[in-house]
């Protein structure tokens, strides 16, 4: 193992017009974050709504600051050096060593500056995904702690391996395995890692009080505001269109002519997913289910993050359709069969749909051998990042307990954690009213 200058091949020079367009797209991308924040809040209970929304903001703030101070250094996108391992006659980059505190950002190449901005947006999105799954029982301080851990350790490692010239990105150059692991819009670095984090949080914090009674089926605890959730989906669409196009430019070096196709594929994937979830829930329950349809829509967007940049429109519709079929079924299996209390469905929507998108990218990418590259990347996500996240969160839980105390949960997170409710004029329901 040794520290050497970066091996990342130079990105093609970017014209001013192209730079401006990409920057404008990235300024629209936070709409996706706003959409996810609204969905997180709407799918929780009314007595925790203010804490959920404040948590969305606080987690983003913590993640951005920690990433600027620590994470960006290890991501190594600005690349002053990197830690490499020599194996099989090849050199594999395992950790980036960038300049401290983003020094030299202004003087870096336009492409590198945009890549760093994309990483900031990605880490902000990532930390929100487990936050929704811990709704109604995950303490704000612990949520901020988890955001710091994700932004300082987990995301930088993943972003370096996948985006910034790390060993997964170099699979193509080193071993002729496709074009290396492809993750154009953050399906792996953001969504799969976010979904896995959500599962770990649920395991550590446990289910909401009364969710799984001693007898009978699990208690239904519907989200308190379907309008927030569905409007969040619309906001997410705007952000996702920009996100996927910006990702295609930054990580896939897509030309201008490829961008309308990327946007259309994103739309088709989301639409296919919604149509599929709508049909499945209508068939199973007699009426379409609003929150599951929202989950399906989002699952289609997540799946598109992996492959919208190079798939055909028909393939995108298929990818979204498959995500839309398995989303409501998996949500049901996780809750009813496996006793996993995931209020926002992040494990399915972000974790499973992200994995599906990455596999689909292996079939749809034009390079030969791409499926193998995608499977190797998925093996790294499941076999390395999942246990790492569990270990880090379990350690964090020792110092900052994840779960609120029983009195706090009974009272509601709003009153307990921030001293005031989101809807002070509303009557708050007791747990028994859900039965």
């Amino acid at each position: 193992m040794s520290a050497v200058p970066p091996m990342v091949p130079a990105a093609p020079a970017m014209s001013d017009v192209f730079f401006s367009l990409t920057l404008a797209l990235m300024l629209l991308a936070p709409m996706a974050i706003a959409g996810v924040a609204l969905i997180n809040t709407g799918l929780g209970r009314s007595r925790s709504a203010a804490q959920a929304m404040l948590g969305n903001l606080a987690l983003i703030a913590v993640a951005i600051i920690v990433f600027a101070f620590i994470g960006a250094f290890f991501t190594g996108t600005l690349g002053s050096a990197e830690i490499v391992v020599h194996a099989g006659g090849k050199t594999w980059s395992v950790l980036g060593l960038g300049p401290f505190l983003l020094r030299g950002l202004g003087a870096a190449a336009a492409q590198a500056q945009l890549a760093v901005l994309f990483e900031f947006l990605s880490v902000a999105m990532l930390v929100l995904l487990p936050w929704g799954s811990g709704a109604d029982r995950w303490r704000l301080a612990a949520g901020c702690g988890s955001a710091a851990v994700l932004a300082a350790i987990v995301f930088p490692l993943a972003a370096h391996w996948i985006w910034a010239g790390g060993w997964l990105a170099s699979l193509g150059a080193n071993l002729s395995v496709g074009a290396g692991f492809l993750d154009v819009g953050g399906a792996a670095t953001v969504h799969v890692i976010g979904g896995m984090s959500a599962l770990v949080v649920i395991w550590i914090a446990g289910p909401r009080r009364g969710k799984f009674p001693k007898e009978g089926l699990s208690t239904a605890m519907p989200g308190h505001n379907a309008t927030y959730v569905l409007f969040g989906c619309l906001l997410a669409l705007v952000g996702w269109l920009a996100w996927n196009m910006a990702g295609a430019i930054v990580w896939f070096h897509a030309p201008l002519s490829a961008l309308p196709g990327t946007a259309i594929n994103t739309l088709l994937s989301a639409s296919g997913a919604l149509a599929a979830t709508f049909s499945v829930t209508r068939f199973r329950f007699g009426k379409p289910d609003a929150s599951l349809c929202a989950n399906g829509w989002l699952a289609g967007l997540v799946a598109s993050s992996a492959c919208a940049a190079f798939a055909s429109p028909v393939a995108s519709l298929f990818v979204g359709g498959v995500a839309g079929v398995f989303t409501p079924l998996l949500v049901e299996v996780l809750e009813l069969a496996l006793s996993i209390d995931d209020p926002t469905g992040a494990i399915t929507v972000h974790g499973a749909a992200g994995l599906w998108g990455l596999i689909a990218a292996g079939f749809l990418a034009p390079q030969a051998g791409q499926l193998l590259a995608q499977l190797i990347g998925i093996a790294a996500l499941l076999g390395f990042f999942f246990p790492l996240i569990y270990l880090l969160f379990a350690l964090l839980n020792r110092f900052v307990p994840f779960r609120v105390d029983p009195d706090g949960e009974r009272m509601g997170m709003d009153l307990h954690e921030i001293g005031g409710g989101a809807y002070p004029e509303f009557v708050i329901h007791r747990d028994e009213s859900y039965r």
Partner: protein
Amino acid sequence: MKYAGLLVMPAGFFLTLAALALFPDSGRRFGFVLCGLAVEVLGLVVAVRGHMLPRGGSQP
């Protein structure tokens, strides 16, 4: 059970890495990577079962 599955998952990852280092041809490499993934899925299943709550429990 809770932690056994989580310990098995990295074993699958190392199997995948070994496939990259040991096999030059894509066929055997593909097979070993699939085996690595299967080991990871097995570990995940064990971890999920280990974390399943007895009915009526609210905390792990």
